[in-house]
């Protein structure tokens, strides 16, 4: 039996034993985990059956076709897309057993706490301290830009455990109970008035040593696993032609009834760039699927940020004075992901695209250094104890 046949047989079993129409969704996802269809490439017992990762898309597609929800992958994205990988690469048996299943069923939401007010692009310069106390660690500090923290049960947390070694060496990684004493989550309102993100404050919060991921001082290694997953998740996806922000611009153009040739040229130029970028992602996927990924795969995140900002700005220009309005006005609240986004809101929201998930400046460094092989900057913080490096 080929891997594909094996996967298909398991999907048949899942859907037969748990008819999507009549099965409670968490029960379905639990069964999916137990059958090894949660992360098919994981070994058996950890939500997988040890086959190639590419079959997961097939599982998801077949489930959707059968009317079975895969929304857990969205509302628990940081757990299922990142946390699981971290646990598999660095976690203990106990940790995997304890966390993977409720993560997949969505019973326990996960969040990720890396960035700090003083550590943005330079994440490894972070200051949140963890100090050992018996078989616990005492956490003090502040994290920022934490999505889902206000609904999360568990948080992936990087802390500084040794300030007296160079910055990458003194970090330790934990899984933190977000409901524990000393952990406070506050909404972080953004330019749109909405709070997609949170700030998390640690005030003598205590984490059992059993929740430490990998060794003391190995936090950076674990963080890199997490960040690589994050950057892959943004950009580089294959999308239909003309979708995304450019669709809004074209729609604005058409409903404007304008025949302004200057605007038209700008719109077509952006359409062309968006399409060239999209085709680059298509090429990247083809090369990756052939096992020979090339430079085309590295430009997606940067393109996405650059073009989104340009396209949404031009959209407002096309709208003219309508672009100066803000239907509904500003309200300080949690975002409602269900409602459609007006172009003005998209214009504001996309400003963060070149900051979140790696600033465009950092992405350009990565393209220059890792893809083109150009030399790095002189490092003033290398080989210097973290405590002696200026930051903030």
């Amino acid at each position, binding site marked *: 039996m080929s891997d594909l046949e094996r996967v298909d047989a398991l999907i048949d079993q899942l859907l037969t034993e748990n008819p999507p129409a009549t099965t409670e969704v968490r029960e379905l996802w639990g069964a999916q985990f137990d059958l090894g269809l949660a992360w098919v490439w994981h070994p058996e017992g950890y939500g997988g059956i040890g086959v190639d990762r590419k079959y997961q898309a097939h599982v998801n597609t077949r489930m959707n076709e059968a009317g079975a929800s895969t929304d857990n992958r969205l509302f628990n994205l940081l757990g299922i897309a990142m946390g699981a990988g971290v646990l598999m690469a660095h976690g203990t048996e106990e940790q995997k057993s304890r966390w993977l299943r409720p993560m997949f069923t969505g019973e326990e939401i996960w969040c990720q706490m890396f*960035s700090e*007010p003083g*550590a*943005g*692009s*330079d994440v490894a*310069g972070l200051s949140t301290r963890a100090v050992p106390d018996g078989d616990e660690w005492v956490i003090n500090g502040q994290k*920022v*830009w934490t999505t889902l923290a206000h609904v999360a049960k568990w948080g992936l947390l990087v802390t500084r455990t040794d300030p007296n070694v160079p910055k990458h060496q003194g970090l330790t990684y934990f899984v933190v109970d977000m409901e524990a004493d000393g952990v406070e989550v506050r909404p*972080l*309102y*953004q*330019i749109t*008035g909405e709070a997609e993100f949170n700030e998390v404050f640690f005030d003598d919060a205590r984490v059992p040593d059993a929740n430490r991921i990998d060794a003391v001082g190995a936090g950076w290694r674990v963080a890199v696993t997490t960040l690589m997953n994050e950057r892959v998740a943004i950009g580089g996806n294959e999308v239909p032609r003309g979708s995304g922000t450019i669709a809004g611009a074209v729609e604005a153009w058409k409903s*404007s009834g*304008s025949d*302004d040739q*200057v*605007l038209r040229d700008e719109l077509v130029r952006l359409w062309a760039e968006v399409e060239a970028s999209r085709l680059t992602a298509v090429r990247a996927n083809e090369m990756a699927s052939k096992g020979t990924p090339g430079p085309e795969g590295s430009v997606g995140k940067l393109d996405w940020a650059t073009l989104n*900002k340009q396209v949404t*700005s031009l959209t*407002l*220009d096309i*709208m*003219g*004075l*309508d*672009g*100066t*309005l*803000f*239907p*509904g*006005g*500003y309200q*300080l609240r949690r975002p409602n992901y269900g409602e459609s986004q007006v172009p*003005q809101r998209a*214009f*504001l929201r996309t*400003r*963060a695209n*070149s*900051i*979140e998930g790696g*600033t*465009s*400046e950092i992405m*350009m460094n990565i393209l220059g250094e890792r893809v083109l092989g150009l030399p790095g*900057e002189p*490092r*003033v*913080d290398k080989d*210097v104890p973290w405590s002696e*490096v*200026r*930051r*903030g």
Partner: protein
Amino acid sequence: MAEARISYAPTDELELIQSTAAEFLADRFGTATVRELMMSDDGFDSAAWKEIVELGWTGLAIAEEHGGSGYGMIEMSALLEVMGRHVVPGPFFASAVLATTAVQEAGTAEQQANLLPRLASGEIGTLAVFERARDWSLSKVETTATRDAEVWVLNGVKRYVLDGHLADLLVVAADQGLFVVESGADGVRIEQTPTLDATRRQATVSLEGVRVPSGSLLGDRGLDSLSRTLLLGTTALAAEQYGGITWCLDTSVEHAKTRHQFGRPIGSFQAIKHRCAEMLIKSEHSKSAAYHAARVTDDPDELAIAAPLAGSICSDGYVWAAGETIQILGGIGFTWEHDAHLYFKRAKASSLLLGDPRHHRRLLGDAIGI
């Protein structure tokens, strides 16, 4: 060349206007106040408005005989530069610039004598001219004025009316010309429309069978004077935009000097340093364009060049600078808590209020024969 004699340097008088304004605005329009007004229903601080009136700002560019202080665009621009730097909310631009200029440009001596003292003394006026989203030249005006015995009857809908919800006086563009309409007149309905830039509000003004006295028609040149009013408005707005750019530049540079990542101030990285340098260049260009326009308002041919030049340069410059300020600030620049978004929103909205940069360039091309 007339411009050879123009001085762009600060005079003691201009420096006094700016330092007085900076002091007052820091005191009365600190960031907490601006934010409170931004989230309030009408975006208006009537107590502060009274002080503004007492300071003589609403009459700054109104002749002394009409209750103003008799200054002109140079002084008004100097003031607006500081107001732009503080992203001050309220109807000042709509009233003291747009409505006042419209009355000055279109009104007869008698009309000016009637209306300017009201504006100087703090009644709020605004310009209700646009109907469509991208027709800044008013190629088509659907609002009609029809004569009925001794009165005019106005019908139509004016959109994007700056601070219309606060206005006492509306200067309305109709097919027969510009009309002064009291906002309380029967048949006038004013509805605020939420704005991208919540520090500068707008309203939609509906006129249904509004009867206004025959003397409400400003002057006798139809809509001819409107283009000059809009050029002057563009000139004034450019000064405000330049003021916003100075905040962006200073904020970016300050952050680049103090924020450390990788053990270095981020301003030591060329990606940030060169962007700050580019912002400096755009700031200087914007200043040149705005200052020049403010100094040639008496020369119609030169204003026809200088105003759209300033509108194009300052609009593009401010939108770019405010966007890059957010980028240089990084995450904090994207928060509601930091002031950067106030400038970003102001910049984008201002770049569309009286014409987008392409519209300004079209006017400029016409003026220089390209």
